[in-house]
C-alpha cells in the first residue's frame, strides 16, 4: 500500500459520504428554486404571491425562533452554571423546577396557549406590524424548544470542566466566562451548536406549520388568525389548498387526475411540497452534520 493510499481513500469517502449536509443543502435550495420557477410559470399571480409570502414568513419565523432559542438556551445554561459554581443550590433548584415544569408542557399545547396570547395582543393592536407578529410567534416557538440548547450548552460546559485545559486556563487567571464562551463554546462546540440550530430550524418549521394549520382549520371560535401573517401552515388550511391536497387522494384511484396535479392544483401541492421537502432536507442536513463532525 502506498503511503498516500489513506489520503486518496479519505478524499473519495469525503465526496461520497462525508459531506451529506452540503449535498442536502444544495438539494434543498435547488428544490425551492425549482418550485419557485414552476409556480412562476403555472400559478396565477395572487396565489403565487400568497405562496411566496407564506414561504418567506415561515422561514423568517423559524429563523427568528432559532435565534431566540439560542439566546435563551445560552442564557439559561450560563445562569445555571453560575448558580452551580456559586453554590447557590436553592436558587438553582427553583430554576431547574421551573424549567422542568415548562419542559413537561407538550410543545403543541404550549404553543396553542401562546398563540391565544399573540392573537389577543394582535386584536388589541399591541402587535401592530407584520414583523412584530412574526417575532411574537417565533418567541412562542422558541420558548418551547430553547431547553434543548440549554441542555447542549450545559453538557458541553460539564464535559470540558473536567478536562485539564480548563484548569490550566483558570490557574493562569483567565476568567471563567472567557473560558466557557471562547474556549469551550466557540472553539470546541461550534459544530454541535450549528447542528442543533439546523435541527431546531426544522423543528420550528414543523411546529409553526402544525399550529398555523390547526388554528386555521378552526380549533376555536375565540381565536382568529385573520390578522396574523400568512404562513405555509395557514395557507395549507385554506379551502383551495385543501381541495388541492384532496386531489392527490383522488389521483390514487383515478389516474386521469395525475397530469392535472401540477397544473390545476398547484397552490396546495406546492405548499405541501415546500413543507415536506424542507423538513426532509433540514433533517438530512442535521444528520449530515452529525456524521461529518462525529457529534
Amino acid at each position, binding site marked *: *500500500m*502506498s503511503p498516500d493510499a489513506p*489520503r486518496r481513500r*479519505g478524499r473519495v469517502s469525503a465526496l461520497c459520504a462525508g459531506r451529506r449536509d452540503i449535498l442536502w443543502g444544495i438539494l434543498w435550495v435547488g428544490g425551492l428554486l425549482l418550485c419557485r420557477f414552476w409556480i412562476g410559470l403555472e400559478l396565477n399571480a395572487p396565489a403565487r404571491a400568497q405562496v411566496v409570502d407564506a414561504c418567506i414568513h415561515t422561514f423568517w419565523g423559524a429563523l427568528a425562533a432559532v435565534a431566540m432559542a439560542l439566546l435563551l438556551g445560552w442564557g439559561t445554561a450560563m445562569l445555571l452554571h453560575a448558580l452551580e459554581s456559586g453554590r447557590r443550590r436553592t436558587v438553582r433548584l427553583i430554576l431547574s423546577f421551573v424549567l422542568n415544569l415548562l419542559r413537561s408542557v407538550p410543545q403543541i399545547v404550549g404553543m396553542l396557549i401562546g398563540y391565544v396570547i399573540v392573537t389577543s395582543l394582535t386584536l388589541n393592536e399591541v402587535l401592530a406590524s407584520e414583523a412584530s407578529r412574526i417575532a411574537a410567534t417565533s418567541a412562542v416557538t422558541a420558548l418551547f424548544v430553547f431547553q434543548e440548547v440549554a441542555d447542549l450548552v450545559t453538557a458541553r460546559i460539564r464535559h470540558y470542566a473536567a478536562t485539564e485545559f480548563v484548569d*490550566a486556563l483558570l490557574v*493562569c487567571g483567565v476568567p471563567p466566562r472567557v473560558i466557557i464562551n471562547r474556549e469551550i463554546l466557540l472553539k470546541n462546540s461550534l459544530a454541535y451548536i450549528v447542528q442543533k440550530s439546523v435541527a431546531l430550524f426544522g423543528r420550528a418549521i414543523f411546529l409553526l406549520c402544525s399550529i398555523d394549520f390547526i388554528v386555521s382549520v378552526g380549533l376555536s371560535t375565540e381565536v382568529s388568525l385573520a390578522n396574523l401573517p400568512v404562513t405555509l401552515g395557514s395557507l395549507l388550511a385554506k379551502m383551495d389548498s385543501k381541495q388541492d391536497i384532496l386531489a392527490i387522494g383522488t389521483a390514487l384511484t383515478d389516474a386521469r387526475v395525475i397530469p392535472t396535479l401540477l397544473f390545476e392544483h398547484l397552490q396546495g401541492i406546492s405548499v405541501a411540497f415546500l413543507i415536506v421537502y424542507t423538513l426532509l432536507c433540514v433533517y438530512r442536513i442535521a444528520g449530515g452534520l452529525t456524521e461529518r463532525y462525529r457529534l
Partner: protein
Amino acid sequence: MSGAAFDIRIAAGGRVLVDTHGFPLEEGAVTFLFGESGIGKSLIGKTLFGILDQSEFGAEVNGEPYAAYRTSPGAARARAAGFFVFQEPSTHLNPLATLAEQLGEGTLRRAADPLGAAGELFPGGERGALPRILPVYPGPHRPSGGEKQRILVSMAFTRMDIALASGENARGLYVFDEPTGSLDRAARDRFLDRLFARFRLRQETILLITHDYGMIAYVRSRHRDLEERFRFLDLTVSGGNARARPFDPGRFLAWLDAQRPEPAERSHPPLLRVESSISVYGRTLDFSRPGDAAAPCTLAVRPGELVYLKAGSGIGKTTVAKIVIGLEQADRFRIEIDGVRLGEVSPRRYWRKHLWGKKMTMAFQHADEALNPKASVAAALRILSLASMRGNDALRTALGRLFDAAELDVLMAKKVWQLSGGQKQRLNLLRALVLGTPLVILDEPLSALDFESIDRVLALLREVRAGGRAILLISHNEDIFDRLVSPESVYMLSSAEQSAP
C-alpha cells in the same frame, strides 16, 4: 530483520509524518532513539516491529509496501522472537484479565517462572506491592502508572529469558517505547541494569525510545563495557518530516557536567510554605530533606528560589501541586502564601480571586491535555490578556524564548493539535512563565522535550529566578535537576496509608 538501515516513509490523512532514510537498526545492538514527543518515534518503532495500524497509516519500508515488509521472513521472525512494550501501559494491558494472568499469556506461557522478572523490578521494600497488584484488573488509575510500566517491562524480560533458556536461533526485536516515563530514577536504573544484564547473556536487537537523556549518564557510568553495542540516535523534524541523526552522547554529558546549582536565595521570607501531614485520599503526605525521611519538615519556597520536590512514581507529587494551586481538595492541609494562611476550610474562590494568575500559576504535566487543541498558538498566549502580549511582535518575542525564530510566523498560526508533543510542552511552559506571577509550579517541565529544548527551558528558568520569582518544580529528571538545584532546596515527598478510625 535483515537490513541494518531502513528507509521509512509513513503518511496519514494526506500528510507525510515520517520520512527517514537509512534509519540504522543494528542486529544485536541497543539503539537509543531520542527526540521530542510527537514527531514519530513510536511510529518508527511500530513500523519496524510490524504492528503499524494499516487502516490509519500508509507506510513504505525500503521502497516496498509496508505489508510486504511486515510479512517478510526477517521481520516476522524478529517479531515472533521479540516483544513490544507500549508507551502507555493502559493501552497495552487488557482490562479484562488480571496482571497475573497477563504475565503468563501467549509466548510468555513457556516461561519457567512468569513472575520472576517482575520480582526483579519490585525489590526490597517494594516487593510487598507485587502480591497486591497481581490480582488486579488494570484500569486507568489502578495500579499506578509506574507499577503498570514495570509489569509491562517485566513481560519483555520474561520473553528474553525464554529465548535464553530455549536457545532460540532467531534474534528478537525488542522495542521499548518510553519504558521509564512513569518511573523514578531508582526504578529506571533498575530497569536498565536488568535489561543489560540480559543483553550481556544474549544480544537481542533492542530499540529503546525515550526522551530521558539522563539515561546516557547512567549507562556510560554503569554499563561502559557495552558501549560498543550502544547506538544513539536523535529524531528531529526538518522540513516537516522526521529524520534520524546520530546523537553524540558526549555532547550531552559535557553539557550535564557544565550544569552547576545556583545558590538558593535564602534572605527573603518564604513566599510559600506547605506543612507536612497533608491528608488526602486516605493517605498522609509528608515532606522531608533527602536522607532524613524520618523527620517531616515544612516545604518553603522563597522569592528567587528553585525548589525541587522529589518522590517515586505515584506518591502524590502532582496531587500536592494541585492542592497548593487550589484545584484539589484535601481533607487536611495547611499552606501559607505570601503571608496568608489557607487550609481545607478556605473557600475555593480565594484562589480564583487573589492567587490564580496574580500570585501563582502552574504548568501541568501533560501539555496535550493542558492546552486547548482547537486554539491557535497565538490565541493560547493572547488569552492571558497581558499588556506585554499585544501585537504580533510581542508574541514573536515571547515565543522566541523557546522556539526557533525561523518557525515563528508559521507556528503562530498553527492550531495546538497540529504541534508536536515537544512544541506543545514548550507552549505549555511558556504560557505559565510569561504571566510573571511571583510563584510558578512546574509539573514535569522537561517531559517530551529534546536536548535543545531542555537547554532553552533551563535558560528561561534561570532568567525567571534571576527576576526574583520562585519556582516549585516536580520532575523525574533527577539527573539534570540534582545538578541544577541547591541541596537545601530539595525536598522529598513520602506517603503513608492512614489507619482506619
